[in-house]
C-alpha cells in the first residue's frame, strides 16, 4: 500500500502542494484528476523522489520512502510513465524499452518482460529497430508505457497519458492501462480527462489548488453534482 500523509511541497516560495493525503491499496486503480496547475505533476514528482517535500510523508509497505533517491524508489517498484513521455529519441524503441529495466532486479527478467510487453503492445515490436523519436505521438506514448512496464512495477503511475492523443488512440491507451491493472499491477492514473479517468478507476481524488477537494468511489464522484459542474460541464 502506498500512502501519502499530509504532504506539503514548495517551488521556491510558492506552495504547490498544501497538505495532501491519499492512499492506494494493492491492486487498486485510482484516478487523480484536476485542472492544469492543480499540482498533479508536482505531487507525482515528489512521490518519485525528484522533488523533496517541505513536510509530510510518503509510505510504501510500511517503509518511509519520503527521502529516498529516485533510483531507490524505482527499485521498490514505484514507477512513473512521465508526462510528455520523456523518451530517449535517438535510441531505438527496443533500447528505450531495455533502459526501463536498467536496475538489477528488472534486468534479470528483461527478456521475459520484453516478450510480455511486445505481446501487449504488438505495434512496438514492428517498430523495435526504429528511433523512438521518429514515431507518432500515440506510438511514442506506447513506448513510454512499455518502458514503464519493463521496470516490473508494483505501482505504475501514469501522468497525463492521453495528452495530445486523438480520441481513438486515447481509448486504445486506456484499454492498455486497464489490461495492466487487470494483470495485478496497482495503477495511479493522473488525468485531465476526468470522465474517462474516473470511469476506469476504483476510487478517485480531485486535486484543486494543491489540496484534495473531493475523494471517494469513482462511480460516486462521477455522480457528484459539484464535480459534474466544474469538470464535466454537465
Amino acid at each position, binding site marked *: 500500500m502506498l500512502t501519502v500523509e499530509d504532504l506539503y511541497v514548495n517551488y521556491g516560495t510558492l506552495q504547490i502542494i498544501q497538505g495532501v493525503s491519499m492512499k492506494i491499496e494493492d491492486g487498486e486503480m485510482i484516478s487523480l484528476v484536476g485542472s492544469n496547475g492543480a499540482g498533479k505533476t508536482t505531487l507525482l514528482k515528489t512521490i*518519485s523522489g*525528484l522533488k523533496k517535500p517541505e513536510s509530510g510523508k510518503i509510505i510504501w509497505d510500511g517503509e518511509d520512502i519520503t527521502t529516498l*533517491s*529516485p*533510483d531507490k524508489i*524505482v*527499485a521498490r517498484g514505484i*514507477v*512513473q510513465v*512521465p508526462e510528455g*513521455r*520523456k*523518451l*530517449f*529519441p*535517438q*535510441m531505438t524503441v527496443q*533500447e528505450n524499452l*531495455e*533502459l*526501463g529495466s*536498467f*536496475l538489477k532486479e*528488472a*534486468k534479470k527478467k528483461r527478456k521475459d518482460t520484453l516478450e510480455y510487453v511486445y505481446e501487449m503492445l504488438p505495434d512496438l515490436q514492428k517498430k523495435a529497430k526504429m528511433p523512438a523519436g521518429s514515431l507518432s505521438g500515440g506510438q511514442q506514448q506506447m513506448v513510454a508505457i512499455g*518502458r514503464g512496464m519493463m*521496470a516490473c512495477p508494483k505501482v505504475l503511475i501514469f501522468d497525463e497519458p492521453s495528452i495530445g492523443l486523438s480520441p481513438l488512440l486515447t481509448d486504445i491507451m486506456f484499454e492498455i492501462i486497464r489490461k495492466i491493472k487487470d494483470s495485478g499491477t496497482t495503477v495511479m492514473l493522473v488525468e485531465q480527462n476526468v470522465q474517462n479517468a474516473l470511469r476506469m478507476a476504483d476510487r478517485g481524488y480531485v486535486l484543486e489548488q494543491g489540496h484534495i477537494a473531493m475523494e471517494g468511489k469513482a462511480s460516486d464522484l462521477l455522480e457528484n453534482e459539484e464535480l459534474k459542474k466544474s469538470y464535466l460541464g454537465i
Partner: protein
Amino acid sequence: MAVSITQSLIDGLLMGGVYALAALGVSLIFGVMKITNFAHGALITVGMFVAYFMFAQLGVSPYVSLPITILVMFLLGYGIQKLTINPIITAPSHNQLLLTQGLSIVLENLLLVLFTANYKSISLPGFDKAIKFGALSINKPKLIAFGLVVLASLGVYLLLQKTDIGHAISATSVQREGATLMGIKVERINAIAFGIGVACAGVAGALLAPIQYISPTVGEGFQLKCFVIAVFGGLGNIWGAVVAGLIIGVVESVASLALGGSWSEMVIYLIFILVLLFKPTGLFGKKTR
C-alpha cells in the same frame, strides 16, 4: 610538390586522429553534463606523465602501459567529477568554467612539483626510424598512435552503443528526467562519463608522449585545440568531434606547409571564428542547447 602535400596530408591525418580522440572526450563530457572541461589539456599532460612515469621507472613503453594509463585516468576523472564537478553541476556556466580552469592550474602545478619544469622525452629504440614509401615517410609513433586511437574510439563507440551503461550515458545526455525515472543514477552516470572523457585525454597524452617533448604546461596548446574541434564538430556530438579532429589535423599540417608553422595555429582559430559566426552549432550540430 605533390609529394610534400601528400606527406603533409598524411602527417596531418595521423595527428588529427590524436586530436579527435582528445576532443571526443570534451564532447562526451559536454553532451552528458553540459560542462566544457577546460582542464582537458592539463589532463592530456597528466596522461603523458603517467606514461612517462611508467617508462622512466619501470622501463615500460607507453603502448604496453596504455591499459594502466586508461584505468588511472578513468579513476582520476571519476574522482574529479565526484569531488569538484558534481557540486557545481547546476551552477552558471561561467562558474563552471572557472572551476575547470582552476583544476587545470592545480594539475599543471602538481606536475611541476612532482616532475619539475625540465623537458622530458620518451625515446623508444627502433621507433625513431620512419617507414618509407618511396619519397613518403611515415613516423612510426604517429602511425601507432593513429592505430590505437582508432581502436580506442571503437572501444568508446561499442561502450556507448552496446552496453547498458553506455545507453544510460546517452539517455542521460538527452533526457535527464526520463533517465532518472528509469532508476538511472544521473550523478553516477556523470562521473562515469567524465571518467571516460578523461581517459580519452589520457590515451591521447600517452600516445603523444613518444612523439613530442613532455612538460607540465604542454597541454595548454591542446586545450584550446580540443575545444575548437569539439565546437567544430558540434558540442556534445562525439562523432562530429572525431571528424572535426581529423579535419583540423589536416588543416594544421597543410597550413604549416603552405604558410609556415607559426601561421597554422592562426588558421585553426580563423576556422573557429568562422564556425562561430556562421554555424555555431558545428559541422553536425542540429540543435542549440
